[in-house]
């Protein structure tokens, strides 16, 4: 029992922290700085505890005698949990200045972030469809509120409404799908479903396939795959910068946690059924996302559009899994880590700049940025290069693994299309670098502040470079190989 409690601690600490923050937020003695520190404190403890349990290769169920097999504990979930908590910690620390520069932030904000992290962690541990749905809704509801946090701002409110109405509607698809699957299997537990699938002919599983396709609709909506993408640019634009950063880097990864678990383990024997649909969605996502990203004038909207393209790359690897590629699953994990690092960095810099001005950031506003803030410009260039998949960054290796897996599974044209969209992405990422470096600025160089947020951004940039070129020659420091080993470890713990 005690052992089970300890294993449940990382999740429990986050939700306790959320309640504590809710209570503290009404107190006058706790200003934003202190609340931020309290939130980071809880997340950090949770992160450290997850790190301690990592490497425990056996998967087991949490409180089996109470919850049945609703919650599973394995390295896969733990590694995702670490990314969520790390993402939340980085969001909170990097944006500390931003919180203080806008008057609409108050204490509940931190509680909401923690609640949504709790929802995501639950999602990555969920081993039962209703649990997964509840977890998804906990995370989503918190994020809906966060998106509309600036309630006097029309754009922000519009984004919130758009996201909430569409998101709730697609949430209903998840529910309907679960109901259909329950109708077929008689249970919503993933292990029961897996047993049912392995014992039934494909022709007799119509209900289950319809049900799981409906669940796929929800997943596709949340990651912004193209027929379900119309919300993504407006919502990312309307949300305050810290929230955009949180959604793009952390929330999106959470959706991949559940979809990988479903696709890799429980629906494994029939996942070739979706291959054609996935391929069609992938093609649309890559092309549509590229088009959206090219046509934007605001940097934030460009990053939103390009995040659709990154979902497209991940979808390539997902359909490669269905076609029997061995290397595709670790490739997805690796790409998620790479994308996480790069997008946290890029959005971090954006909100760092935004904390000092009220302007919308168009491409033109970056003219002469390199002379004003040379170090920030170097960091931003590194993040852009990594997102564009330029070699010597971790983003290149991510794309390398994804495209290799596509070729291995025989999807040569899809790999070609992926490389083509990677080429297109060079245009809109390099455009920002060009803006920063190729124009002179009238304003003189500003002193670079040396504080927590800049230090973290520098650390992200170094990690990206090291993840791209790092050798395993230096003892105790994992190189580029170390990241793919982590990814492999996560995937192997699933089975």
């Amino acid at each position: 029992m005690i052992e089970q409690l300890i294993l449940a601690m990382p999740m429990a600490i986050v939700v306790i922290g959320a309640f504590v923050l809710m209570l503290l937020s009404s107190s006058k003695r706790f200003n934003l700085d202190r609340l931020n520190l309290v939130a980071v404190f809880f997340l950090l403890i949770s992160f450290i505890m997850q790190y301690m349990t990592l490497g425990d290769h056996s998967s087991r169920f949490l409180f089996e005698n109470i919850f049945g097999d609703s919650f599973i504990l394995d390295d896969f979930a733990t590694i995702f949990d670490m990314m969520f908590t790390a993402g939340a910690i980085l969001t909170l620390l990097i944006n500390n200045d931003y919180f203080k520069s806008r008057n609409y932030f108050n204490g509940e904000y931190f509680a909401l972030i923690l609640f949504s992290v709790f929802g995501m962690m639950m999602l990555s541990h969920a081993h039962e469809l209703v649990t997964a749905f509840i977890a998804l809704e906990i995370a989503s509801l918190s994020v809906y509120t966060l998106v509309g946090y600036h309630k006097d701002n029309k754009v922000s409110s519009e984004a919130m409404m758009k996201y909430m109405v569409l998101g709730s509607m697609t949430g209903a698809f998840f529910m309907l799908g679960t109901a259909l699957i329950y109708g077929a299997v008689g249970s919503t537990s993933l292990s029961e479903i897996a047993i049912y699938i392995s014992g039934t002919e494909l022709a007799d599983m119509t209900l289950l396939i319809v049900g799981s396709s409906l669940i796929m609709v929800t997943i596709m909506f949340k990651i912004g795959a193209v027929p379900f993408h119309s919300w993504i640019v407006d919502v990312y634009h309307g949300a305050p910068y810290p929230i955009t950063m949180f959604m793009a880097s952390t929330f999106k990864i959470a959706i991949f946690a559940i979809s990988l678990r479903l696709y890799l383990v429980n629906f494994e024997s029939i996942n070739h059924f979706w291959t054609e649909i996935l391929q069609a969605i992938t093609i649309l996502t890559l092309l549509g996302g590229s088009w959206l990203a090219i046509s934007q004038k605001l940097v934030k909207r460009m990053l939103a559009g390009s995040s659709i393209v990154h979902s497209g790359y991940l979808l390539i690897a997902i359909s490669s899994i269905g076609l029997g590629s061995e290397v595709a699953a670790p490739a997805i994990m690796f790409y998620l880590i790479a994308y996480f690092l790069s997008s946290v960095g890029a959005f971090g810099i954006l909100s760092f700049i935004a904390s000092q001005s009220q302007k919308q950031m168009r491409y033109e506003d970056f003219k002469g940025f390199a002379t004003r803030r040379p170090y920030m410009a170097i960091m931003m260039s590194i993040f852009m290069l990594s997102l564009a998949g330029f070699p010597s960054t971790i983003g290149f290796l991510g794309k390398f693994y994804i495209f290799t897996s596509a070729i291995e599974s025989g999807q040569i044209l899809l790999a070609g299309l992926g490389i083509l969209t990677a080429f297109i992405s060079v245009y809109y990422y390099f455009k920002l670098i060009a803006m920063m470096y190729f124009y002179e600025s009238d304003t003189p160089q500003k002193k670079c502040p040396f504080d927590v947020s800049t230090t973290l951004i520098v650390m992200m940039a170094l990690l990206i470079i090291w993840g791209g070129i790092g050798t395993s020659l230096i003892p105790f420091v994992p190189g580029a190989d170390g990241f793919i080993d982590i990814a492999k470890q996560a995937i192997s713990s699933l089975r």
Partner: protein
Amino acid sequence: MMENILSNIIFLPLLMAIVLGIFRAPLKILKAGAMFSAIVTLLLVALLIYNFEPNGGMQFTKILPWIQNYGISYYVGVDYLSLVILILISLLMPPLYIYMYHERRKGYWYNMMLLQTGVTGAVLSLDLVLFYLFWETMLLPIFVMIGKYGNGMHQYNSMKIVLMTILGSMSMLFSILYLGYIYFDATGVWSFALNDLTTLMLNAKTSIWLTAGFLLAFAIKIPLVGFHTWMAPAYGSAPTPAVVIMSAIMAKLGIYGIWRFGYGLFENTLSYYAPTVITLALVGLLYYAIRAITEDNLRKMFAYSSGSHLSLIALGIFLTNVYAWSGSLYFIATHAIASAGMFIMIGLTYKRFKTVKISNLGGIAQKAPKFTFFFAFFALSIAGLPGTGGFVAELLIIVGAFKANFWIGVLTATTMLSAMLYIFWMLQRTLFGSSNNSCEYPDLSVRELIMLVPLLVLLLATGIAPSLFMPIFEPGLNTSLQEVLSSIGDLK
């Protein structure tokens, strides 16, 4: 020492740049550091040549594990072919740093050091992924230097060169990935090392597509005619050191790529593409020459001239006979030195007269004799003046072309004539004639002489005594030519 010498040569400039950058070195120390790294690299290369074994094949190899999960390793080595370009890049850096002596913008110096590492790494790497890494990385300093320090529509032109080059690199990346997969399919382990991949037996159809991926990248880099739209704008906008590197080294890397990876991996399929490439090269010879005749901007004129000569080299390596091959290799070296000298002279012209338009120049010969001498010498050595290395090289390629086919030979020979035409006409209009520019014409200073004289001596030495240099490269060249010929012969 000798074991790690290649890694030292590759990474010394980069390390120097990082150290100087971290300590935010003041301008004087930055300049000294850059010069120091260039000279030490040059000395290391000299040491390498001294220990180089002409019959030894691939030498000084070093393999370190990098991404073991995919069989990617840090794998470098040097043979006769990479040695030529390695010597060129390390020879050209010190004169360029002397040229940049008055340059106050720090970013310029950092970019040059990064560029040296990128180019050297690309030439020496024998793992395809490592090669791709350096191949892309060397583009970044060029991108920044054209965009930030260039002139004219430099922002647009720098974006254009980057996008076009990356389009080629991406197609090459696809081929690299596919090759790696074929190796994995055949053997069960991943590898991207060149000598592993050469053992693969590819079927004809796959091979044709994969070769196309590589060729596109190299054709854009050279550039063959039809893939050249980035060239003249980029050369026109780029600052002088960047132009020198682009024309003297980076364009040659396209040739190097065909030589190393084309003939290393797809020697049989290249004969499928040979008619296309030879036609493109012949069209290029004439087209670029005509554009050079009509061009008024000196930088663009020599951009076209460089395109014309590189088409000649590309033609040479697709005619697989010993004259054409040794001519091409020799021309890589001599054209690099001559065009470096020429572009430096154009840079000096711009510094003095603030224009590179031929129609605005004239009458230099009366006021600046030393300047005129060097200007004319480098221009004529580009045209293939007897006594300079370019003459020997062009003659060899033309002989090789006649050996392959009479008409190809005739068309190839026109390159010498047309080059004479545009060079002499340009010299007449810029150096002689009446001066319509009343400002002061300072002659070459001692500093400028120091950087130009070595280039001049080298060009004369390569022209008068080719036998000094050929023994180092000839055996390796013959062996690899025999290998290529025998494997093509097997096919027939």
